[in-house]
């Protein structure tokens, strides 16, 4: 269990946040740039000393400003993945990975670095310099280096932001696998809610130095506490498997995990993430298959009804969590309340597909 609590000046405002990450789970700290998410990560690693703060990992106290205790970063055993990966340019890839292995003979260090590189499928790059690597390869080297010394926590600062859109999908899948396997608490910082939803078991949304809401991605999207969270959560993500297209030019049909199907004008095959914005989704009485142009109809049960300003967020179980954003007048017309069954409809053209 990793606990981080910090209060410190942060530009024009103050960071005042506390997070808790159980072993084997990943908390995604999500928020706009400058919100203080990286600062909290740096406090956890000991790279920044807050005015007030407390950091504990299991029974070890890494920082306690009240008691005047501060453990140096090198003694905290944090695996830290930097935003630009911070690979040492003057060392070969394997030397980067082996950097954290101390008190081990050179041959043994080389062997262990080789094992990690093999696990990430890049052992052929062992003798290359980082500058010759692609973005995706650098990200893997950075992960391998962070994991080499068997860290007690994993801290990731925007681990996917330096990658292009194509590489990001596969890197994200791989990273999710790593986070599942390590078994240590992981704290991940991102400005992208979709990324937070895919990689984090839970998501904490941070704005202007404060954690404004924490929960699973589904909870945040369905029942945001504020307009900020509602806007920030953006698109809802469903997962499924795309059926092979019969003819080029056909829409893609995705069999959703847990039942139901949806269509998209995007192309895709195999496992995909399907995203749609809550304001694109309309609700109709259960079983309705309206004559409108919308291609997607999913039967769902209302789970939550949350008023956010002049909008209403309706959390649905379809059975995957789905969120519709509608006006207050529409809520009354449909008699929306938890437990009511409705049909969610939206257009195939408003549905984005990302390969997983």
């Amino acid at each position, binding site marked *: 269990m990793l606990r981080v609590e910090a209060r410190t000046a942060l530009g024009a405002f103050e960071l005042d946040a506390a997070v808790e990450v159980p072993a084997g789970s990943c908390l995604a700290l999500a928020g706009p740039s400058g919100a203080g998410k990286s600062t909290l990560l740096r406090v956890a*690693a000991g*790279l920044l000393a807050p005015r007030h703060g407390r950091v504990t990992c299991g029974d070890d106290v890494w920082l306690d400003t009240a008691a005047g205790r501060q453990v140096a970063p090198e003694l905290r055993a944090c*695996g830290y993945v*930097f935003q630009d990966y911070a690979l040492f*340019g003057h060392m070969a890839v394997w030397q980067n990975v082996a*950097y*954290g292995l101390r008190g081990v003979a050179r041959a043994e260090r080389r062997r262990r670095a080789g094992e990690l590189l093999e696990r990430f499928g890049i052992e052929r790059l062992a003798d290359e310099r980082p500058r010759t690597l692609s973005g995706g390869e650098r990200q893997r080297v950075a992960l391998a*280096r962070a994991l080499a*010394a068997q860290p007690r926590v994993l801290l990731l600062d925007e681990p996917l932001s330096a990658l292009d859109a194509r590489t990001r999908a596969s890197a994200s899948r791989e990273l999710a696998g790593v986070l599942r396997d390590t078994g240590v608490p992981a704290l991940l910082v991102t400005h992208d809610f979709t990324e937070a939803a895919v990689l984090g078991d839970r998501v904490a949304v941070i704005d202007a130095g404060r954690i404004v809401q924490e929960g699973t991605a589904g909870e945040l999207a369905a029942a945001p506490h504020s307009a900020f969270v509602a806007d920030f959560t953006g698109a809802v993500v469903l997962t499924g498997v795309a059926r092979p297209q019969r003819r080029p030019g056909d829409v893609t049909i995705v069999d959703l995990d847990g039942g139901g199907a949806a269509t998209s004008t995007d192309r895709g095959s195999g496992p995909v993430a399907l995203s749609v914005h809550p304001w694109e989704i309309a609700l109709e009485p259960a079983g309705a298959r309206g004559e409108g142009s919308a291609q997607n109809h999913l039967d769902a049960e209302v789970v939550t009804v949350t008023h956010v300003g002049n909008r209403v967020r309706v959390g649905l179980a379809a059975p995957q969590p789905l969120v519709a954003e509608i006006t207050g007048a529409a809520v009354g017309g449909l008699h929306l309340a938890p437990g009511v069954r409705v049909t969610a409809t939206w257009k195939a053209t408003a549905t984005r597909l990302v390969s997983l």
Partner: protein
Amino acid sequence: MTRGRWFAPALVVALAGALTFLTLPVVAIFVRSSPGNLLGALDDPGVLDALWLSLRTTLVAVAIIVVVGTPAAYLLATRTFRGHAVVVTLVELPLVLPPAVAGVGLLAALGPGGIVGGAIEDAGVRLVFETAGVVVALTFVAAPFFIRGAQAAFGAVDRSWLEASRTLGAGEARTFLRVAIPAAAPGMLAGLALAWGRAVGEFGATLIFAGSFRGRTQTAPLAIYERLGTDFDAALALSAVLVAVSGALLLTAKLLGGRGIARAAR
């Protein structure tokens, strides 16, 4: 006549004038000293002594500068503290100090009647008119060239590299040795070449603080000055050697400096 037509030619004329004036003396040294009398002059034991002394004293001075200057430059590059700008300015002061003033200052500080001269004498160290004094004078005038270069080189090292090193279990000292120095090496070497070049050419401070005694404190520039009236061929030969050494050091600095900047830009 179209307006502005004269400007580009004027720039070319200015550069041509500057280039001619700045290279003419160097060219003249090689024109005046034929290979024959160059080799002949290098047979003169006094000339060889002066070159050998220059090599020894500049090497020792540069070694001292690197050992003390590297951590000092790292501190200036990676930490901010009250009076940082003042400290940087004080360290750079010898760059603009007239060499004669440096010599007088060294006498006033470390000479027999100097403010710490007594303590140095009590410790059994003699500097004035001694080879050790030459090293002191060279170190004084050349150190800022290295410290400035090293500070800029450390400043250009990506902060996240240093932080990554810490999170990977390396303390500050190990981070300094394993990451900061190798990453800053090209810039540091460029600064070192400039410092060495300055030390090789040092004249005024050495003459005033250490004197000009053959084999003991007479470095190559001092030997040139001594032979000027009596043996102009020897003075030319020594000058030719110093031109070659200085040119090589400048070229090294340029090549390494260029590489350092290219690396930082990636």
